[in-house]
């Protein structure tokens, strides 16, 4: 148990790094994701097609491979990103690929009648999107956005492979020092469990609150 006391602080520090990276990456990918979703729906063949291909590539390649391409692959062309930038860049690129689909589905879930009503009022496309469509899409998207958030937290486990000092990194360090993998990975599991269960709890509270407005 002495080991737990010794390494718990390191795990908590790692959790801080994970959360920081997740927060930045999710914030950026939500903003870019909305724009890209609008581009995919209204952007015509070329832009829409390009975004579709991007989404397919992000969804078709294993996360670990994407990360390695950014960190190791680019070094072949003398582009040497720091661990942190490579990790963050990957989380953003990956996140955008997922966020586009979430927002597209949300926007398309709003009925045609709503769009027609907005058109009939003379709203511009941006107005209709901001005032009519996104507020309604929000409710539809909330569960998938929460799943997305949890997915990104889980994705940070890969970042130790490029040398970012996250939870996994600390747990592996601790394992090699103590030769007690059961305790170290158990602690890592508990840390992730706390983070992700808290996030889903917040998500379901939000959903319930949103439901009240309807």
């Amino acid at each position, binding site marked *: 148990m002495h080991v737990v006391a010794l390494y718990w602080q390191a795990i908590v520090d790692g959790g801080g790094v994970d959360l920081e990276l997740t927060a930045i990456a999710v914030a950026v990918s939500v903003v870019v994701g909305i724009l890209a979703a609008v581009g995919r729906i209204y952007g015509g063949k070329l832009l829409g097609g390009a975004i579709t291909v991007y989404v397919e590539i992000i969804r078709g390649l*294993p996360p670990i*491979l994407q990360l*390695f391409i950014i960190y190791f692959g*680019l070094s072949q062309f003398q582009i040497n990103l720091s661990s942190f930038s490579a990790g963050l860049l990957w989380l953003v690129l990956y996140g955008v690929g997922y966020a586009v689909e979430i927002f597209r589905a949300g926007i398309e879930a709003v009925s045609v009648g709503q769009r027609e009503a907005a058109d009939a009022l003379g709203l511009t496309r941006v107005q209709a999107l901001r005032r009519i469509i996104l507020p309604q899409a929000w409710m539809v998207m909330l569960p998938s956005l929460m799943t997305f958030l949890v997915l990104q937290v889980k994705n940070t486990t890969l970042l130790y492979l490029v040398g970012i000092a996250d939870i996994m990194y600390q747990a592996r360090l601790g394992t090699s020092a103590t030769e007690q993998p059961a305790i170290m990975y158990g602690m890592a599991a508990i840390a992730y469990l706390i983070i992700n269960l808290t996030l889903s709890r917040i998500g379901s509270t939000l959903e319930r609150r949103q439901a009240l407005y309807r």
Partner: protein
Amino acid sequence: MSTLQLWGQYLPQFLAGLVVSLQLTGAALVLALALGTLLVLARTGRIRILAAIATGYVEVFRAVPVLVLLFTAYYSLAQLGLRLPGFWAGVVALGAFYGTLYGEDMRSGLQSVDPGQREAAVALGLSNGAVMRRVVLPQAFLAFLPPGTNELSNLIKDTSLVLTIGVTDLMFQANAAAAATFQPMDMFLLAGLVYFAFYILLSRILARWELNVQRRRS
């Protein structure tokens, strides 16, 4: 050496890695479907304690990253006396996680069947087994297919995690080749092409199958 020559040289190794990835996918899929079925039975069954255990299992295993499960299956279990080979540690970790997803997909598939269907089948005098087999399951399957196939393509990608415990799958081969050739981008791109070709192939086949099942029924 030119990129193409390098690719030609390493392709056999990559394909051998792909075979390992596919074996891993197959074994993990079988485990996940079996586990998912058990979870659904437990959660919809009448024994309260089993239902609570299944619900707890789903909550916990959905929240813990697969990589943590993988290290637990490989390193922690070994410390506790159960030494699994890397391949089987991968099967256990992936199966344990994807079982929760498949369980949820099956459950919502079952819930999507209109209660009137069960009622009509019961009114015909069908036994409970026949109501399930002939009426409920065929319809639940249709609702299960889209999320189920989506989960499968995620499972294939997640097998790449076993690189971290030294299983010689496609990702492992790519990483080894990247280190040996000092041309990491070329090697990872080749791996990407193989993964992507397989992803496209599989998603097209599965989509066609889904469409066929749907079309046969309308």
